[in-house]
């Protein structure tokens, strides 16, 4: 009996503690609203710059013949990559019953959704005639025209839309029991809001049974999507005939890269986040260490892909491809190449050292470096390949200009804005999962 009481109190305590993190978001929290407001301000400026770009034309960017894709497409791939680990941490680890995932899953999933929302901006920002973006949507229309489904861009749009919807459902279903808890503990308009979000959850055994099967099904589906979505994103490039893009290795290569960048972004967000939200004893050093271990594994796969790319270029009898790769290490964009190698292949090797794995700040710095490395990898693949194609007359160099910098930085603000807004209004750690985790004897 006494043990039961202790357990009940501990469970109760979990609810209180996690919900306390939400208190941080109460209207009075100047820090929270200050940061959210600052993010809004920054992305509003970026939006104005975008309007300027639409009015003036792409002449304001650094894009040029032959480098028609630059910062915007890089940002797109980068954010889609970020979107990946959320699901990985959450769904794949769930399927493998890696219970240590529980405390970081919610943050990771929220990151996924917001990252997809951010990524989805860029295909539109990058359109020459952004106001015609709806022409890409397949719906019966008075124009009597239909999009071209042989274009990888259409596959891309479909894949991302699917991924977004499934990720949103996955995230939401996991939230339903937590919304019910919030409903029970709130009053006024918040009560009304949470009541509608809780979908009448009452915690009966039957509901739990459906919850479990739905969650497992979605976890399986979303796991498949992790692989498919980034494969399809990579085909935006691999399906083109550009030397440096046209390669069958691209799908696994991009998936691995996406996971690497996503995992490091989870670290980047979690390490300061757990301090701010006061959930250090939920998201512990062990969780961070496990993520770091995953990063080492994925980084080795990514490094293997880098080596393979060059090996194929050397092995193949294609002068154009070879020339493109020689240019990559030797040409105008060589600094990006070496930055990529250092950040993505060398820095993660530090995680072999337990001292690095267990130091939050070292992990944080390393995760930032990996993010930078992943950005430069995408930029390198996209830009340096285009800059050095078949036709020597048209070789060129691309240097981004201020509107591109502003809009890309603005997208970071947009990401943080929504991330903070959402994570401030839902339990940052799944209370239901946490309780189950504790009941099953896991550590807190």
């Amino acid at each position, binding site marked *: 009996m006494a043990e039961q009481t202790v357990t009940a109190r501990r469970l109760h305590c979990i609810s209180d503690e996690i919900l306390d993190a939400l208190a941080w978001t109460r209207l009075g929290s100047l820090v929270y609203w200050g940061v959210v407001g600052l993010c809004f301000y920054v992305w509003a400026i970026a939006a104005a710059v975008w309007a300027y770009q639409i009015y003036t034309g792409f002449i304001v960017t650094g894009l040029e013949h032959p480098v028609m894709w630059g910062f915007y497409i890089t940002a797109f791939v980068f954010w889609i990559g970020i979107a990946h680990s959320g699901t990985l941490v959450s769904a794949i680890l769930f399927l493998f019953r890696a219970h240590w995932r529980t405390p970081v899953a919610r943050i990771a999933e929220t990151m996924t959704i917001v990252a997809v929302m951010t990524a989805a901006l860029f295909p539109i920002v990058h359109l*020459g005639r952004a106001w015609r973006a709806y022409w890409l949507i397949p719906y019966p229309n008075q124009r009597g025209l239909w999009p071209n489904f042989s*274009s990888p861009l259409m596959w891309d749009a479909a894949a991302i839309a699917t991924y977004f919807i499934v990720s949103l459902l996955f995230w939401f279903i996991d939230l339903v029991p937590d919304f019910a808890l919030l409903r029970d503990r709130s009053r006024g308009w918040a009560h009304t809001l949470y009541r509608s979000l809780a979908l009448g959850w009452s915690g009966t055994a039957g509901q739990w049974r459906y919850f479990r099967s739905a969650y497992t099904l979605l976890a399986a589906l979303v796991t498949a999507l992790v692989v498919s979505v980034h494969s399809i994103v990579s085909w935006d490039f691999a399906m083109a005939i550009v030397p440096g893009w046209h390669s069958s290795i691209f799908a696994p290569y991009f998936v691995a890269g996406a996971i690497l960048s996503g995992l490091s972004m989870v670290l980047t967000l979690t390490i300061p986040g757990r301090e701010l939200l006061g959930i250090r004893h939920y998201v512990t050093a062990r969780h961070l260490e496990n993520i770091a271990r995953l990063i080492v594994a994925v980084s080795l796969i990514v490094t293997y892909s880098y080596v393979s790319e060059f090996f194929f270029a050397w092995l193949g009898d294609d002068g154009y491809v070879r020339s493109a790769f020689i240019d990559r290490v030797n040409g105008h964009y060589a600094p990006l190449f070496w930055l990529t190698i250092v950040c993505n292949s060398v820095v993660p090797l530090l995680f072999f050292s337990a001292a690095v794995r267990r130091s939050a700040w070292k992990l944080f710095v390393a995760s930032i470096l990996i993010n930078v490395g992943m950005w430069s990898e995408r930029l390198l693949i996209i830009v340096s390949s285009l800059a050095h194609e078949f036709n020597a007359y048209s070789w060129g160099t691309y240097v981004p200009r201020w509107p591109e910098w502003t809009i890309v930085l603005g997208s970071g603000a947009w990401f943080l804005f929504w991330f903070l807004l959402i994570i401030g209004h839902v339990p940052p750690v799944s209370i239901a999962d946490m309780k189950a985790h504790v009941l099953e004897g896991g550590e807190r």
Partner: protein
Amino acid sequence: MERRDFLKIAGVGASAALADGCSGQSTDRLIPYLVASDNVVPGVPAYYATTCGACPAGCGLLAKTIDGRVIKAEGNPRHPINAGRLCARGQASVQSLYDPDRFRGPVGRTSNGSWQPISWETAESLLVTKLRDTIGRGRGGAVAWLGGLQTGSMERLSGDLLKAVGSERRLFYEPFEYGALRRAAELTVGRRQIPSYDFDTANFVLSFGAEFLESWLSPVEFAGAFARFRQRRVADPFGAFIAVAPRQSLTVLNADGWVPVPPGSEVLVALSLVHAIVNATAASTSAAPSSIQSQVAPYSPEATARATGVAPETVRGLARQFVNSSPSLAVGGSLTGGGADPVALETAVLLLNAVAGNIGRTIRFDRPSSLDALATYSDMVDLTRAMAGGQIDLLLVHQTNPVYTLPAATGFGPALDRVPFVVSFSREPDETTAHAHLVLPDHHFLESWGDYSPRPGVEGLRQPAMSPMFSTQAAGDVLLRTARAVGAQPPDAFRAHDYAQYVRDYWNDRAWEESLKNGGRFARQDSMSPPEETLRDLTSTIAFPSIPSTAPGNDLGLIVCTSPLLYDGRDANASWLQEVPDPVTKSVWNGYAEVHPDAARGLGIADGDAVTLESSSGRITAAARVSSGVHPAGVAVPLGYGRSAPLRYAGGRGANAFALLSAAPVGGSLPWGTARVKVARAGNGRRLVVLQTETRSSADRSRLPLDAIIRPASVIQPPGTTPPHRESDLYSRHEHPEHRWGMAIDLNTCTGCSACVVACYAENNVPVVGEAGCADGREMSWIRIERYDAEARMSQGIRRTDTVSMPMLCQQCDEAPCEAVCPVFATYHNPEGLNAQVYARCVGTRFCSNNCPYKVRRFNWTRYEWPSPLELQLNPDVTVRSSGVMEKCTFCVQRIQAAKNDAGRANSTLSDGDITPACAQTCPAHAIVFGDLNDPASRVSRLAGDRRAFRALEELNTRPAITYLKRVAPAGDAKGT
């Protein structure tokens, strides 16, 4: 008020308002035709045959007008000079017509020196008063006419007017006056005239710098002849074209071999060749009198080798080839070269032709050229002296700009200021109008009546293709009225009531209408064998330069070069000519100072550095271009830049190379080749915008174009027996039930002159982006000329770069990589084999451009604008594209459609040759052929199956509709043997 009263008052008021609004001349344009002219059907083009005025070559031109506006210049197919082709400058003449900087009307200088627009009445009465005063003071002889080359009506009218006022001072002045050539001909054969050259029958061509494919004498005519010269190789191994020159000009780039020599030493090479020939064939010296032998005795190949750097064996080899390939042809020095004594060079070249027996065969003196009437530089120096000495009271300047095109050291500008009254007929502000007192802007030649005859038997007519853009008056009309007003004698000479009538009277042609339609009167080319020319004894008339014994100092020899686009800079304000890359350097919008890498190393100059060039006469700053296309002892600077006139595209752009030249005439000519310059680094910077930085083609196939030069053997033998590799496709092939449009481009004849590029700008409303746009890689041209050099190698002392100029445009692939990736079907394969681009459908993902291996798609980075009135040149049959959409070559789909419509209306079917895209139409080398690949009998089908045929990046399986034909190297080339 009664209703009737109201109507009366209203009527009077309205007519008063209207009467007030009707001022002067232009009301007739506002009233629609009561009876429409047969020639003007809205939207239907009318063509007017006229004569190009962009240079003195006098090509025939058809002005295409739609709704009363000239929109395009096309070659006149009936004209014997250019046979329907035009060069880049001819194509750009429509832009000089709509030049936004043209004078809107006459302007006079006020007492405080500023300009003021005045009325034509005032302007003409001012001229009449001044002229009358001058005559009244008995100073009629102090009236002078300084004009561009004129023949026919204007020649007579200006002459008659001067005669009437009692003056003999009339100079026809062109900066390129061939004075040395004329003088050399006088010395050698006793005829002071420019010979005519026959590339068609020559078996071997040796050039000493003559830029006959770009600006020398008659480039379009020569480009056609040179194409035939080179095309003969395809059938049988054929002689070569070797150039001896200090710099690779476009013409030298097209040579099969280049003998780089220090600037000014061409003459020594020519003399050593003569020496080698006369001594090798001593037994049969029928063509070489002993005087020649003694005169060239000091110039043995061994003696000259040290000064020229050309090995004696090379000279002997060339001499052998020159004699054995009879008839051969040696063409003289460059327009702007010839070293210290251009007459000596031209004489040596004529001697070389003489000893090889070419005179009377490939080089003839029985067809005089109108250019023979040009004033020489000495004449200009005399005029300058006369002006400075106060001997000229009234100067009429017509279609020439001597203040810019004479070296500053000549002092023409300051001398001009000493002339009490200077009248300019210039149509736009230039350096000379800056010194004028009165500007009476002439029509553009596309607005004018007139005539021009480049040589007897080729009399070109000019007729206005549209009414004048601005309030301009034909100079002829002004002269006629002025002559009548001052009572010039005899009155009969000035009887014609206007200049149009004057021209007609002058022609006195029964078949006037016919001549107008044809663009002139063209006598059939005489096939008579020319009279025998006897070689004069030159011993007493010319002293050939001695062989310099000491190496020149550290200074570099100045090589002034002409560009095929800018010529002498007269039409530099045509933005197309600035935007289209220089065919040799691929640079745009600016001049350069080209130095050899060895010289650059010595001077500490890197590519792109700002450098100062200082001669004894002047000093300029330019961007350095380090290139092995120039001899280490020289520095090359192009003409046409450094205009100081208020011209928005040309003004203040680059440096004026004329400033470096000294003033003292040599052999009567401008001392083009005497200046030595100090070159020094002035700072960093990458100011020169170069569109193609990598021109080396490479063996590992990492760069276009494959192996575009083949040896003659592989043409004559059937192609290799490698079986075509098996092809399988997931999708079925496109079907082309009716037509499949295709093109063949012959790299054997393409010279890279870039006329096609300008024609495409004109036809397809391609916007001009300016220097900054080009620097950002945003030029919009739909067709470009790519230059590829093989690894340079020396063979028999001759440098062979095997340069290929490859026009690159949309290949209209059958399996187009661009089509598959467009998410909205903005680009798709149409049933006639075109990659259609639907501008209205394009959303601007730019994926198509990324996936195009040829990189021929162009993105509209912003809304491009045409400063008024340049927008009047836009082709109404072609959409002006909006910001954010992709565009590219359409094979001139508007012309395809028009031809199909015409055939449909006439109930006939299209036949081969009915459709000609703008690029193919203007190609002076006839290198581009367009037609239907579905028709096995069409020219393009036959060429597509030619043994020389290849497709660009064929291994990508894009199946282009464009076939390139490989260039054939001459027999005897070391590569082939």
